[in-house]
């Protein structure tokens, strides 16, 4: 358990240019000491090549398809490059279905839900780590145990409740039932507990009230974890499927993944072009976010491994 704290750190340290040279030399020394044969190196490159092909070729395939004319999709053997390329499918998918509505819904749901979860997670974690009150351990267990309850088991009863409130096809109906935070509370609590006691005590002695302590001392020292928590939340909420799927009948509240299902129901197998264009557009925002912030994102998505 203690050893896993370092690896997550090392994940995001690798690409820092300033320290890279020194690290590389050091690491090289360490690896030279361990057994390492040319065969392993070759196997490593072969493995790398294979796995990149397996991941990239399907993605390449759907992008290429999204750029083909309809008649070029339904041919055998398949064309591996669009000839000629066209953006008709993208035009089609953004005009024929309310694609921008789905996109807007996705943005609304993701932004509101993520902000709520981040605030609630930080406040809960703060109370559970730096405030003293009776029953703290029990409350912590209640929060954490929620991780063990799959969403799929709670949907039946929640559906009935939300439908009764008349909240189907509303944003509050999608957002509120998903807003409880278990994992983020756990992550931020561990972070807050890892802060040096002396600094927090010093701030308290200086007369900092609890909220000032959180805002001025605790949060500024916890940025990397907070960023990681925020990113993983944004990705998860952007990809949320089952609950919005049950709550939304149409483009009033359906987010992109659900909109994609509606599009697929209409066109599906018979008209792959626009469906693939829609798929590419649905994948793009989160992939771009990942490419830009991958270090922090990997840290967030793997952070649970720190304490197992």
């Amino acid at each position: 358990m203690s050893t896993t704290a370092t690896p997550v750190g090392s994940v995001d340290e690798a690409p820092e240019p300033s320290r890279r040279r020194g690290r590389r030399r050091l690491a090289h020394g360490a690896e030279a000491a361990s057994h390492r044969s040319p065969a392993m190196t070759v196997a490593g490159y072969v493995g790398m090549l294979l796995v990149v092909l397996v991941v990239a070729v399907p993605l390449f395939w759907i992008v290429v398809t999204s750029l083909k004319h309809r008649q070029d999709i339904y041919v055998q053997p398949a064309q591996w490059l669009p000839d000629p390329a066209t953006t008709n499918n993208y035009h089609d998918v953004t005009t024929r279905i309310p694609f921008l509505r789905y996109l807007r819904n996705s943005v609304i749901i993701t932004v509101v839900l993520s902000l709520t979860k981040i605030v609630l997670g930080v406040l809960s974690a703060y109370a559970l780590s730096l405030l003293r009150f009776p029953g703290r351990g029990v409350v912590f267990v209640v929060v954490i145990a929620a991780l063990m309850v799959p969403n799929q088991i709670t949907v039946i009863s929640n559906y009935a409740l939300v439908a009764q409130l008349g909240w189907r096809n509303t944003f509050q109906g999608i957002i509120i039932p998903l807003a409880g935070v278990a994992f983020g509370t756990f992550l931020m609590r561990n972070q807050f507990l890892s802060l040096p006691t002396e600094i927090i005590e010093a701030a308290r002695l200086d007369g900092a009230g609890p909220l000032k302590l959180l805002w001025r001392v605790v949060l500024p020292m916890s940025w990397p974890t907070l960023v990681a928590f925020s990113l993983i939340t944004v990705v998860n909420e952007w990809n949320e499927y089952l609950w919005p799927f049950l709550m939304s009948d149409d483009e009033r509240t359906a987010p992109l993944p659900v909109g994609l299902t509606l599009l697929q129901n209409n066109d599906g197998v018979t008209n792959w072009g626009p469906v693939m264009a829609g798929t590419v557009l649905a994948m793009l925002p989160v992939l771009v976010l990942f490419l830009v912030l991958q270090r922090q994102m990997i840290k967030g998505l793997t952070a649970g491994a720190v304490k197992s």
Partner: protein
Amino acid sequence: MQSTTSGTGLAVGERSGPPEPVGPPPRRSSGRTWEWSLAGLLLAPNLILLIVFTYRPLLDNIRLSFTDWNISAPVANPVGFSNYIEWFGREDTRKVLSNTLIFTVATVGISMGLGLALAMLLDQRLRGRNIVRSVVFAPFVISGAAVGVAFQFVFDPSFGLVRDLLTRIGVAVPDFYQRPGWALFMVTFTYIWKTLGYSFVIYLAALQGRRADLDEAAEIDGASPWAHFRKVLLPQLRPTTFFLSITVLLSSVQVFDIINVMTRGGPVGNGTMTLVYQVYRETFVNLRAGYGATVATVMFLILLVVTIVQVRVMDRPQT
């Protein structure tokens, strides 16, 4: 620093004593009740949400499983154990259980095994290693629905990528849409494709944080690569393996989006029907919420037992 929770009454008494002229700042002496109420205030919204939307439905689900409720009716009549008797006696239950088992074991086993193998291969100074890490991890952040739609086309028996590749090497293409076994293969492959990066990245991180001196000692002892792997590497990776086995299993048992998008539990009725999908199908398509709640309860119990067994097995001290 947080361990002084005992004897709170005494502490309050001490602090509320006569105020000293140059004592600690007033906030500290204003008593514990203030701290308690603040904690309550900060925790209340999250706790209420978790109780109302996680714990309440978990219990309500059990109640519903003993009724004949259909999701839209105002009343639900108690039916005793008849939903459970029906579930255990029904023909399709075996198929659903075996689908769930095959899908879960294959996805957990293959993604963890491949993830570890790949992590070991890449735990060397290779050019382009970081790029490969990003590429392999990227599918993990894409929505399952989008991946499902994409791979439905990849596996299209007439015009898909798989058909094209197999035809080029002269292999006949199975009908992934119509043959239940191949449909199950298709969703399993798709899910592994999406989640492999997670196990890989976590294993790679664990490998890079391991103790080099143990590797050196094993080398000096002249341990064979296999012995080195079994006796030195695997024991060090144990906490990681434990963590992954629980998280990967929990998420793969819950897969809904990929199946909903690719097969809807079909073909031939229940070719790729898993427990989670059966909960959805019975509750929201067949409008038998009582029966759906029964399946959900059974699923929760199975998950609970599996997790307890995992914790027991992994907690056992090693020899």
